[in-house]
């Protein structure tokens, strides 16, 4: 699992209120009836950061990438300066091959489970 700070998109020094606010916003955008798996992910991340001890444990016992993600966002140009949106064939190929590989891996896993 990715680190809970990155999943919720909060700073690793975020307090109770900020984490709760962010979690509720995500649940509003992705309600459990429409996106059950995603909701489970957010719920697990929220529960992993609910107390001071849990937040400290998440910081101490694992790496987290939220600072890197923030740097990427800071590198984005401001919305008014964004140019025409592009999609390249290379990107499409990479994503479609990723999808085929993942679907194939799921099929293999299911075949193994059925065989067992």
């Amino acid at each position, binding site marked *: 699992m990715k680190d809970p700070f990155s999943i*919720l998109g909060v700073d690793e020094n975020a307090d109770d209120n900020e984490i709760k606010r962010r979690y509720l*916003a995500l649940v509003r955008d992705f309600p459990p009836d429409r996106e059950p798996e995603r909701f489970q992910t957010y719920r697990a991340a929220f529960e992993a950061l609910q107390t001071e001890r849990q937040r*400290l444990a998440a910081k*101490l016992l694992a790496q987290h990438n939220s*600072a890197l993600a923030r740097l990427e966002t800071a590198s984005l140009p401001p919305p008014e300066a964004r140019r025409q949106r592009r999609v390249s064939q290379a990107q499409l190929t990479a*994503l479609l*091959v990723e*999808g085929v590989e993942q679907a*194939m891996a799921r099929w293999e896993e299911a075949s193994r489970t059925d065989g067992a």
Partner: protein
Amino acid sequence: MAKQNPRKLPSEASTYVLAARAEEALRLGSFKEAIELYKQLLKQEARPEWRDALAAGYVGRAKALSAKGLFKEAEVVLGNAVALDGAVKEPLFLLSCLIRQGQIQKALAQALKYIGTNALTPGHGRLLSDLTAALYLARPVPLAAGDGHPPARVEWIAAANAARAALDALTAQKSADEIEPLLANIPARSPFGPVRLIVKSLLTEDPAKARRLLDGVPPDSAFGPLRLAAEAALPGEPAEVVGRLSRASAAQRAFALDRLAGGASGSPMLARLLDAERGGPGTLFTFLSKQAASLPAADVRNACFNLLPEVPDRIALFEKTFAKLTEADKARIFALAAEAKQDWARAETQWRAAAARFADDGSREGKLSAGIIYRHLATLSVKEPKIAGEDIFTDPVVSYLRKSLDCDPDHLPAVLQLIKLYREDGDEKDWHALADEAAQRFPTESAVLMQAIESAAARKAYKKAAGFAKKLLAVDPINRPARQRMIELQISHARKQMRSKRPDLASMELAAASEWERADTPNADLRINQGLVGLRGGMDLQAEGRLREGVELAGGGAVGWFRAALQDALMTPPRQRPVALVGDELSRALRGVPSKLDIVTTAALLSAEAVRADPKATYELGWKFCTWLRSATHTVLSVAEFHSVADAIVRAQLFDVLREFAVAGKRREPNERLWRFYEIVARTTNNPDRMYVAEEDEIRAICNSPTIHKDPHGSGRIDRYLDGSGDDPSSKRRARRREASLATGDLELLETILAGFVSSISPRDVQRLVKSYGRDGAVTALADRLAQLPLGASAPSPLLKMVAGAMVATALGEASPPFRTSPYGGAR
């Protein structure tokens, strides 16, 4: 040397042997051997079944190679199978091997052969069609429908070309107005339907509409990553965008950032950052450490700090660029790096160093951090045997939990876990001390108060237990288990008073117990015991009424009177007759044929802890129950329901009754092998030494069957039967005989092996143990350690304690030579 005649035909017998060997090799998964043998057989005679078996051998071998990551080799072996008759045996598996090698064009060419055919099952056909759609769009090739093509293939090719045209228009930066008509040509229900939804979502300016469109693409389809990438590229507040980007894969993130930033030229810094990320943690660290001036400095520092466990050799560079790290932080980084390499010994050392530094810090956060690390070490030591703990005599889980509580005594789950461990390990002194301390520290936590009740009850400190129970019910008034436990405790105390011929005290005890009873849930055992004490003491005019009320609450009839008889037996002093009313009513009730409910409920009563703990008092009732069962051996019981009934029958040693149940069960459920197990138990009178060889084979087959692994009750009973560790009288007798035989026969061998251990521990170590844990604690610690030796596990615990006791005595200078007396009394 005589030349062999190549034309000489093998004898029929050798062919038969070869075929049998080949079949066995195929069955056992020795595919290489099976392939060689079938090749030899086919040289002799081209039988179709041998050709099919050879093909199966090739497929099996290919799968074994693929499981080892040898995809190229797996493809070659599959090719051998195709060469036999020209048919691909497992098209999806071949496709998987090609994709894993990155041979997308070859995979597409292979997959396209199956489009529009019925060569695969419907499920596999659908999957292959979806995969082919994604493969085709990833690496398009010219496709045209031929004249003789089936309609399904023609439709598929038309949809493919429409989707291709739409994607070409998208990558050529054409306008939405130009792309929309192309999308309309893609049938929504075709395997290319997701392309229509994804491209539409990329064209719309409304994020909510885009999200709705993307919801129509299953995330686990071959188009899932494209959907997630499109979703990550949706505009939103910065934190939301960050969250989405951090969850995305590298390809998804590159796509999303390109869409959000308008390409590398739109954000050169972002392009460089992504390039650095692709280069790995070292490259990224180097890149970031030079960007403190151009990017937010705090985030650059944090991002670099978080990369350090992956590149611990950059600690010096980090300190030079940003700031000095604390010793605790450095130890934490080294510990995480060691964990990533699964170097558990180093991880443990570094975590301990980090915890010690955090604890020395003295701040609240430092103490909490140390507690967290010690708990982490306790968790790790459960999974990793290389986490050794602080000393060899203490379970590392226990020692790390103890240390965690020294730093963070308010962590409730650790307290409860440690109490549980002390209790399970029989470490009574620590268990009671911690339970009492926890009850003071967490006076309103019901889980802690429940543990305190159990601890006080185990010490027979009933008043203390009642005090904890009162506190518990003050915070949790409807805590049913606490009320039930208190009633049980006071009933067992009242039983003790009755056995000491003090019905007056027993009556007072039961009156106190009734305070725990809720008006809406009267307690059957309490009423029965009040009635019995009243009848035996002759003081209570309402005693019979109370007894009958209790019996009714217990279900009435045979079950109710059986319960009353058991309660009576448990409180009866030795050699005293049961209460006449109970005896008469029970005899009357047992005249009828028991129902299924009667059987199961009464067996459950006989399995209760208090009943099993006093087998002498309750043996006669168990025997009566089993005699009663004689009239009901054809009752339809499932084997799960029968387990506890069987236990009661075995304890009563009425093996003919057990046999009749087993035979009837086997007739009803011929495929349920546990009935056969019970039949064997009955024939051997629960003595595994009396099994025939064929019966041993049957038991082995039952143990190896997959169904038994899903039935812990059944497998536990088989284990107990084979170990002879049941609680019936003959199993206990056999266990005593085994221990005695080990004591006299194997003691010399044990001496030799244990002597090695004894000499490896210096008297000073033992003295230190005595100082830390007291004499008894040191003996227990040494005996635990002895039990972990290869032969120690099979040695009886009294013997280990004796050896440990002798070691302690020697270290304290008061010893007689060890092992000279038998632990079972008497000199050897």
